[in-house]
């Protein structure tokens, strides 16, 4: 299990790095999907199958499809690759990399403080649902209202005059 966890985790990290350095936008998206799927595996290994499957359905299966959909509509060709390559020059890259490195350092110090034992605790669908519709029902309702607002505005934008 621990091996699986670290394997999936490192795949996620590598894939995410590849998302940043890829110049072909479709390949970058594929790496992003890969990263999301490996995060799903991480969830599963940690004992949260429901979260894992939702990660796959919602993020990898629906949101990324919409991303790809938008990319198709934009007709990105060779010129965007050149543009991307321009953004990957060390000169442009230095500042964000520095900031990210500081953040990474902070993260590492925070993590290194606690003990490293991974807790495998199976959380089934029933437990998750009981929590969602019990103590956190207000949050669920708020989130659904947010989604509803998005839905209504999308409907309004798409409506013919």
């Amino acid at each position, binding site marked *: 299990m621990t091996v699986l966890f670290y394997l999936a985790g490192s795949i996620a990290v590598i894939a995410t790095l590849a998302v940043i350095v890829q110049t072909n936008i479709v*390949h970058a998206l594929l790496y992003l999907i890969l990263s999301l799927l490996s995060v799903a595996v991480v969830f599963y290994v940690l004992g949260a*199958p429901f979260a894992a*499957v939702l990660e796959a*359905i919602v993020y*990898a299966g629906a949101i990324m*499809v919409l991303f*790809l*959909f938008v990319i*198709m509509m934009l007709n990105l060709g060779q010129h965007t690759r050149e543009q991307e390559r321009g953004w990957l020059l060390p000169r442009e890259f230095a500042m964000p990399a520095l900031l990210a490195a500081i953040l990474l350092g902070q993260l590492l110090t925070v993590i290194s403080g606690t003990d490293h034992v991974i807790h495998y605790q199976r959380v089934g*669908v029933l437990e998750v649902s009981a929590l969602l519709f019990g103590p956190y029902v207000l949050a669920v309702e708020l989130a659904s209202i947010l989604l509803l607002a998005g839905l209504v505005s999308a409907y309004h934008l798409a409506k013919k005059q």
Partner: protein
Amino acid sequence: MNLDIGSGLTIALILGVVIMVSALLITVERRLLGFWQERLGPNRVGWGGSLQVVADMIKIFTKEDWVPPFADRFSFVMAPAIIMTVILLSFAVVPFAPNIGVIDSNIGILFILAMASLGAYSVMLGGLSSDNKYALLGSLRAAAQMVSYEVFMGISLLGVVALSGSFNLRDIVAAQEGLWFVIPQFIGFVIFLIAGVAESHRLPFDIPEAEQEICAGYHTEYSGMKFGMFFVGEYLGLVLVSSLITVLFFGGWHGPDFLPPVLCFALKSIVFIAFFILLRAAIPRPRYDQLMTYGWLFLLPLSLINLLVTGAIILL
């Protein structure tokens, strides 16, 4: 070796049988379509056309496997592999009989939904990487269609989940011991049927590959075995949807006692496969916007109402 859930022999058998059946469907579908159109269909190769599938295989394997120079090679090669993988993975959670299956997972339905939603990538990448306008149009249509119909597919299943109280397909089958879920969940069944056709983009919902409008849609540029994988993937999807309908609404392996459970399952699935082929023979293809309007304005409210009513009845 013992024939049990998850044993190597079972897994190999299931994989082999599923792929064989899908390949055979190429012939079966052509013959059935022929009968329903007052023709005979292919009946020359082998006894009654039974070896037609071998002939098709030989043809498709010996064809030139061409990648267009303007295509994005990586995604182009990936796309057909994705659909095969994803659908074969979905078969892992399908309970064929009390002791036949690959895994006994308690997130079975969710797993299948996740795989179905990943299946959309195959179609989209195929179209996008071909760098061909018809392929692009096809995959645009596919993306919208599959994402939309996933929604109704998921919601229509929730009635079944609520009745059986589990996401595990084996528990769902076990819960249908007395009464098949098609009776309390008839609306859910109809919606799942429609959404299943749309998910496996077969006629009448084969809008992503509508030959008369956009060549062959997303697989316009494919040839040889890559096309063959799309082709077999479509039939695999058909088998998957049929076996899911059997499992979720028609009691899975339950049946008369003198039949072995796995045979019961197979017979029921075959009926649904034939029904899907009949759909293809009989129903014309709707327009793209009609499909979308139908889905969002009719199926979505219907499935939500179905879920609400089911929940209310369970609570009462």
